[in-house]
């Protein structure tokens, strides 16, 4: 049972990291990333492939972060003069392209067989039986560090400029802000966090294949952010937990309804998640957490009332 809780909490930390990234990209800068799963896959595969070739685990993780951040910047460049719709389309198409590459470039990614036996960082030091707990603590520490960093960024003049652009980029540009550069940076920062989460994913499961980076990851992340209240990193902690409880709770669905096959109950769970997302948007678009104002600035400022 302890093992189960450790596993769940590890999943929650990964979900929280993805949510942080989305809060940066969407919550702060107003940039929709519908291809989150693709960037997540890039992080995971970069870390996994490098570890396989004998690179030290931590270096590989740093490389994964850099790679994901760089690709995020590149993708965001394509559409920056346009509305959010276009970025959403481009990122979605990018994720599809990533999936195709992961599935078909067998020489690099192992194709549908994926990559197995990914070496875990520091396992020699920590030892096998304590590793799960160690990994959870590592994840929690990284979540804390990321939270503090992002909080710092959000409260900085940079963060204020981002929110100004989100509300009205023409006004921000008129006031001398370099809209393009700020947006690319915001998207890259989010990308870096996704890369970190991807690397942790690869190390935790020690096995990855392309199906793990399909659209549902993106939907979970959006749901966590929307449940928590868009733009609120503290609300996100609650949001990610709620989503995970929903996911894990519905896992037991097949025990209560024995007629369903494993495949059917899995589909039903995913359908319920999607319906949940839509229901929240309809009934509680501001999220369950009312921390939106509190979490952004210590003093209330007018740009917090979208």
């Amino acid at each position: 049972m302890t093992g189960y809780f450790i596993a769940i909490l590890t999943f929650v930390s990964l979900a929280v990291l993805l949510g942080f990234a989305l809060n940066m990209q969407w919550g702060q800068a107003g940039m929709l990333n519908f291809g989150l799963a693709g960037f997540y896959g890039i992080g995971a595969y970069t870390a996994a492939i490098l570890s396989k070739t004998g690179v030290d685990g931590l270096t590989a993780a740093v490389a994964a972060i850099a790679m994901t951040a760089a690709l995020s910047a590149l993708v965001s460049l394509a559409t920056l003069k346009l509305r959010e719709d276009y970025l959403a389309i481009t990122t979605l198409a990018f994720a599809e392209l990533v999936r195709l590459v992961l599935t078909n470039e067998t020489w690099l990614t192992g194709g549908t067989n994926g990559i197995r036996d990914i070496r875990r960082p520091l396992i020699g030091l920590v030892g096998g039986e304590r590793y799960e707990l160690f990994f959870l603590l590592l994840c929690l520490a990284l979540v804390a560090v990321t939270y503090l960093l992002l909080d710092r960024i959000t409260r900085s003049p940079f963060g204020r400029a981002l929110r100004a652009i989100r509300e009205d980029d023409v006004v921000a540009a008129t006031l001398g802000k370099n809209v393009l550069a700020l947006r690319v940076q915001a998207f890259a920062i989010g990308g870096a966090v996704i890369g970190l989460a991807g690397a942790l994913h690869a190390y935790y499961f020690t096995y990855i294949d392309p199906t793990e980076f399909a659209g549902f990851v993106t939907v979970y992340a959006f749901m966590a952010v929307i449940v928590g209240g868009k733009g609120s990193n503290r609300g996100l902690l609650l949001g990610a937990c709620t989503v995970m409880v929903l996911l894990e709770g519905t896992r037991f669905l097949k025990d209560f309804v024995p007629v369903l096959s494993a495949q059917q109950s899995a589909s039903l769970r995913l359908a319920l998640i999607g319906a949940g997302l839509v229901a929240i948007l309809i009934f509680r678009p501001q999220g369950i957490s009312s921390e939106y104002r509190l979490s952004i600035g210590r003093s209330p400022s007018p740009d917090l009332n979208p």
Partner: protein
Amino acid sequence: MQALLNGLVSGLLIALPAIALSLTYGILNFANFSIGAMITTGAYLAYMANASFGAPIAIAAPVAAVGLALLAIVIQHGVYRQVRNADHVTLLVASMGVAFVLENVLRFFYGADVRTLDVPVARPLVWNGLRLNHEQLTIAVTALSAMAFVAFILRATRLGRAMRAISDDPDLAEVRGIGRNRTVDWTWAGVLTALAGVLIALDGVVDPTIGMNYLVSVFAAAVIGGIGNPFGAVAGALIIGLVEETSALAISTTYRQGVSFVVLVLVLLLRPQGLFGVARIRR
């Protein structure tokens, strides 16, 4: 030549959902990400009528069209109209949720198995060394007649004038008593999307991912045509179809969507209003 012919046919196929996307975009001002799942749903509706109830495809296709049009109306009333403070970003996210629900409901009932429609197999027509199989012929004829019909509606009827008025200037249209959120547009979008689903299923197989496999191409087509412009979408779809098929001579066909992605990015960078769009991009 064969690649050009195949490209034209697959362009016609992409054109139907691209028109549907443009119609709903022009009117509601949001990109409907559930269009991939809608295509799949249309294919399964036809499959249900065709394989489970034994209806010939000529009956199954209209059944799917009506069914999907109804579903589109239900989703419009049940979801998109209900989302409060409906800025287009919220609607985008909602449409992603809708896509997720549709796809997984289909998986729930039909699993991930690959199915085929029950149609007679016929020899392809050969003319001067060009091969055109019956499915392609059906696709071309159906798509062309559907497009002609939509063009007729948009250009020559009161309804079409109203639709164009909304997409040109919603506020002005509202003043004249033509509101947004009109059911009729979703009906058309549903019909066109369902037809696309049936045609895709006819050309290949039915499985829960077929719509997703076309999503990027459809969006690329709509963007090239200047999103919100149904006639541009047709041209965009033909371009995408041709580029995808001719690129298959050089690049593996598994990267068809990758090619669309590259075309999409190039168009967004070089001519963001689309090849046929007017420069009317806000922000």
